[in-house]
């Protein structure tokens, strides 16, 4: 009897969860798909790739929660984007903002984005992806000499320097190659 109750509860929870899952795609498609949802949703927006990608990796919207993108993709904020002027015309900015907010970590069902969403649910919106608690924890064993002291890396912010499939939204350990250090069993 107790087990039946638990199953019913679980089913109810799944069903109520489906509403927000629709934001990404059909919930039932998501439910039966075990491969596509592990990482971060790849960028599927031409303007995003062009505008963000002309200066740095076009970081996937699923790497930060919506509240972070809302702060970053603002006219005033972009005029001083980590020390650089990254101003955009109004129409482009509006379109990119919509894209970011619709695909932000807290709207995504991709596993890595879910973790980022959880890690940033409370408190201030991080402006840098490397400030996200989950991302920090994942890099705790990466020493200074591999990043700052490594002339071919310089900063943790340049994901694609070591994450060879970052552009496809894939960040798992097996795809890591740290310049001058190698794969993930570098120590």
């Amino acid at each position, binding site marked *: 009897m107790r087990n039946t109750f638990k199953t019913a509860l679980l089913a109810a929870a799944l069903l109520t969860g489906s509403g927000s899952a629709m934001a990404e795609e059909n919930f039932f498609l998501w439910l039966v798909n075990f491969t596509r949802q592990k990482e971060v949703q790849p960028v599927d927006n031409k303007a995003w790739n062009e505008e963000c990608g002309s200066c740095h990796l076009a970081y996937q919207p699923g790497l930060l929660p919506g509240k972070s993108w809302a702060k970053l993709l603002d006219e005033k904020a972009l005029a001083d984007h980590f020390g650089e*002027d990254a101003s955009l015309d109004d129409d482009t900015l509006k379109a990119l903002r919509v894209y970011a907010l619709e695909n932000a970590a807290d709207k995504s069902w991709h596993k890595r984005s879910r973790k980022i969403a959880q890690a940033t649910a409370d408190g201030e919106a991080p402006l840098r992806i490397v400030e996200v608690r989950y991302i920090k924890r994942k890099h705790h064993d990466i020493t200074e000499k591999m990043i700052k002291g490594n002339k071919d890396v310089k900063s943790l912010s340049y994901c694609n320097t070591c994450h060879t499939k970052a552009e496809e939204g894939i960040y798992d350990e097996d795809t890591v190659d740290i310049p001058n250090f190698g794969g993930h069993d570098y120590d």
Partner: protein
Amino acid sequence: MKLQKIVMTACMLLATSAAMATPATDGLFSRYKAQGAAGFDAARGDKAWHKETQGEDGQTMSCSTCHGKDLGKEGKHHKTGKVIAPMAPSVNKDRFTDAKKIEKWFKRNCNDVLARECTAQEKGDYLKFLLDK
């Protein structure tokens, strides 16, 4: 025979003049003039392009900091390391074909290197200098 030579020369002249301007830059030159700029000068653009200004951390910077010394080759963003396609239209046919893009980067890069927006005169001089490359 003589006619052929004349035609050939005419074609070559046309080809060189075509490489030195695009419909996009023609439009920009007249816009800059309407904004008060007088004639444009490649030599002045050259000088301004290479002028060193005070950057961050006590280092100086100029346009070459990111675009590189040889405009026919790729440049590299000084912070992110992102590759910047060559500026010279002689090797990069896509350069200076989109007025909106040119204006976007003038705004950003003038602010980053000079800490202010460029005047119409300055932008025209830069363009004149770059179109010859």
